[in-house]
């Protein structure tokens, strides 16, 4: 990677290892880098500990999504999903355990996979991507059990309501769909369309109607993107607050009683569910794509953000940026 390539690198996805000591990040060149968080956070950290312990080419296209199960790292590249063992990765072995592709109908252009979620109840992997469909794969057998169709444009984000076992998906067509009863009846897909654009408070026509980020807390749902970031009450299907943030948001999470969100603009926004933006913490990239919290480990409870640069910012105290890891 020469300096010019580093200048044009974007990091799209990150995830922490099950033990919480490692961070995996995927960039637009199809590479995945594994960083040792324990080394970077230790008191005698040097410049070298902010570099990855392992960088390898995982896919041909950009790695838009990374998730971690108890033992595996799943990465999504150009229409394919690969699994890597965390134990092997920490030993610097880069052999994929398996690589699977959902069945796509189009052949001319390979659709990307934008979002992946693991449904731990029936051990299945749910992926959504460029072919406007959601595919569900059984993790044990590796076969794709079913396809959820309904979106008119490609899917940006997925979220899972643990209590009810429902899946939420947001796409480029501006719709948020709720898919229920996935576990029991695989053929019966009840989808409730929540069309965000109808509600005037959130819409921002100059940005478009696409839904870039979606997260849910079983009762509440946050969605944003082209429309402004808004908090919805799911039972009544109505928005309760709209956050006035300048750019389009790409990722939002609930944390304790705060909402943390990133998107266009070089900052992490802390918002209160009431609707006010409490703080905007500056970061090193001009715009941010992904934000993750390390909830697996108690001693390394950090937040990391990354976006359109080769730097991954690490926030040990969520109020300021501590240091940056770099590819």
């Amino acid at each position, binding site marked *: 990677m020469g*300096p*010019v*390539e*580093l*200048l*044009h690198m*974007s990091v*799209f996805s990150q995830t922490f290892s099950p033990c919480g000591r490692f961070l995996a990040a995927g960039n637009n060149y199809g590479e995945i880098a594994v960083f040792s968080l324990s080394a970077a956070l230790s008191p005698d950290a040097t410049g070298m500990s902010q570099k990855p312990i392992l960088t390898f080419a995982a896919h041909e*296209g*950009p790695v*838009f999504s990374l998730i971690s199960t108890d033992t595996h790292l799943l990465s999504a590249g150009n229409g394919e999903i690969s699994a890597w063992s965390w134990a092997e990765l920490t030993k610097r072995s880069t052999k994929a355990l398996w690589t699977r592709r959902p069945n796509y109908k189009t052949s*001319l*252009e390979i659709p*990307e996979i*934008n979002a992946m979620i693991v449904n731990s109840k029936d051990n299945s992997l749910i992926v959504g991507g*460029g072919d406007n469909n959601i595919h569900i794969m059984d993790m044990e057998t590796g076969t794709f059990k079913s396809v959820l169709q309904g979106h008119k444009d*490609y899917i*940006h984000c997925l979220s899972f309501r643990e209590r009810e076992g429902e899946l939420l998906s947001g796409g*480029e067509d501006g719709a948020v769909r709720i898919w229920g009863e996935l576990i029991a009846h695989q053929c019966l897909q009840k989808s409730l369309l929540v069309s965000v654009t109808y509600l005037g408070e959130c819409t921002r*026509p*100059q*940005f*478009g109607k*696409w839904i*870039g980020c979606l997260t849910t807390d079983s009762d509440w749902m946050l969605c944003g993107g082209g429309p402004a970031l808004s908090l919805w009450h799911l039972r009544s299907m109505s928005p309760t607050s709209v956050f006035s943030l300048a750019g389009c948001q*790409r990722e939002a999470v609930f944390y304790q009683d705060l909402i943390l969100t990133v998107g*266009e603009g070089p900052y992490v926004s802390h918002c209160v569910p009431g609707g006010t933006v409490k703080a905007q913490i500056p970061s090193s990239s*001009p*715009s941010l*794509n992904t934000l993750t919290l390390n909830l697996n480990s108690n001693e390394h409870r950090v937040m990391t953000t990354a976006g*359109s640069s080769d730097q991954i910012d690490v926030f040990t105290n969520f109020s300021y940026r501590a240091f940056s890891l770099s590819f």
Partner: protein
Amino acid sequence: MSTDPLKKRKTKVIRGDGGTPETKRIRGDADQSMEVEERRRRGSVHFIALKKLNRMAHMRLKKARDQTHEAKQRVDVLHLQLQNLLYEVLHLQKEIGKCLEFRSQHEEIELVSVDEFFQEAPAEISRPHLTKEDPHQLTLARLDWELEQRKRLAEQYKSSLCTKEKILKGIEMKKEYLNSLQPGLQAIMQASLPVQEYLSMPFERVQKQAEVARHLPPPLYVLLVQASAYGQACDTNLSVSISGDVDEAKALSRPPEDSQDDESDSDAEEEQQNTKRRRATVGVQLDDKRKEMLKRHPLSLCIELNCKDGSILHLFFYYLMNLNILTVKVKVSASADLSGAISAGELLNPESLLNCLYASDHGQETPNPANRYQFDKVGIVSFADYVAELGHPYVWVQSLGGLHFSSDSPQVEGPHSSLSASHMESTMKLLRGRLQARLALHKQFSSLEHSIVPVSNECQHLFPAKVVSRLAHWTMMSYEEFVELSFVQHVMKAGLVRNTDLFFMATVERGTARLQAAVVLNPRYPEITPLFSLSLLWKGERSGRTDDNLRAMESEVNVFRSELQGPRPGLQLLTNQMQRLCVCLDVYLETESQVCDGSEGPREFPREKMCLRTARGPNRLKPFKYNHPQGFFSHR
């Protein structure tokens, strides 16, 4: 005497008798006298018989002794004879032994075998009738034959020695003859000069050059040798020549070249002159010292590189004696007319043409660390001030002349020709490449200034047939102007810009949209890709920092060098990058969704490009990648 003892005895007896006669005399004087007389007479007769017996005994003894003696003598004689004979026998035995052991010299001579002898020797020597029986004769005959053969061979040997002497003499004469030819040949060569010129075989010129080359300082000599060798072996378009004043060089080479001596000499001279006239000011003195330190050797080398299209790159190499470095000045004589492009003014500037031939070789400072101390003595702060006049002391020039400066110690090694040889080929290739790249850029710039992006036939497949955005302006910028632009700060922070680079501003327009691209051109183009930074003015200002799609366009133009550089040697890189920028702007504008500030009028830019999807991925990038020959746009 026998009588004596008798007498003595008698006397004794007498005396003895005398003792008592005194008493006896009275009694029997008369009868005693007659008995005595009788006894005396008988005694005397006995005495005479005794004497006679004694005598006879003695005589018998003597006789016996004589006989014994005689016998002994005879035995001795015989014994002696026996001894003599024995001795002789022994002697003879020894002689016999010796004779038997005697090896005559003739047995040491190797003779031919008997059969051969009989075969070869003529009859008068071999005399078979005699020799077959008698071995003595046979040996004699063989010896005779041997002697004759040896005499014959000795004759032959003498005669061959004579012939050898004659031949040696003949060789000597011929050698002298050949040596005498040399001056004759010289005369012929002189006479053939005009013929050489006519046939363009410049032997004479090469010799003259070699003659002058003897007076070159060692680094220039190394450079001359290596460059001529390289020119002859690999590259016929390279020619080397020496220019300058040979007499001055000869004058210089006579006293030993020692910078200390020179300085002190010149100082001494200065002082002498000063005492005669008014003392010159300190400033003038210092100036003279500086001039002395920076003095060039009177001889210089000129290397000319001819390129295929007829342009020539002239390189003039000078040697600064006191500083022990080589400098170079450059001149370009191009085959085509170069007056077209305004923005290309800097491209062929002789001051900066050879900048950074190798990375970070700026040629502003002297590479010899020892010069620092010398400069301090005469108050020269930086060599960069004198570069314009003296030439650039690039590191590759020092390597070509075999001068190697280590940065640890101020010791300078003598010129190595192996260092020069290893650098020669790569440097010559780089020089040629640099000249060709600059000339190509010159041509491209004059075309760019006329708003035409020249795309060669081999690279047409990279772009669609119809490109609507057009290049409106192409101007040159200075480093200061570049640094002030707001949308280039990320490139500056990444450390990819230096003040030796060339900066340009390109403006691409389509309709109401105006895209400004700031281009950083490294002197080592096309080895190093030019870097574009974009800023779009269309319904507000966006730059690569604020708009992910503009960033994707920058990446499309900057990162994919392998696609854009075209056929070797990659001189199409910049123009291909420009064309790709225009294509990307087309795609950007055409795929922008028309959700603007409320108005629902017709789209300003109708969709003409074929795209399968207009957005992909979390940041909804546009399809900038052109697929040939299908002609549609897709995402990377």
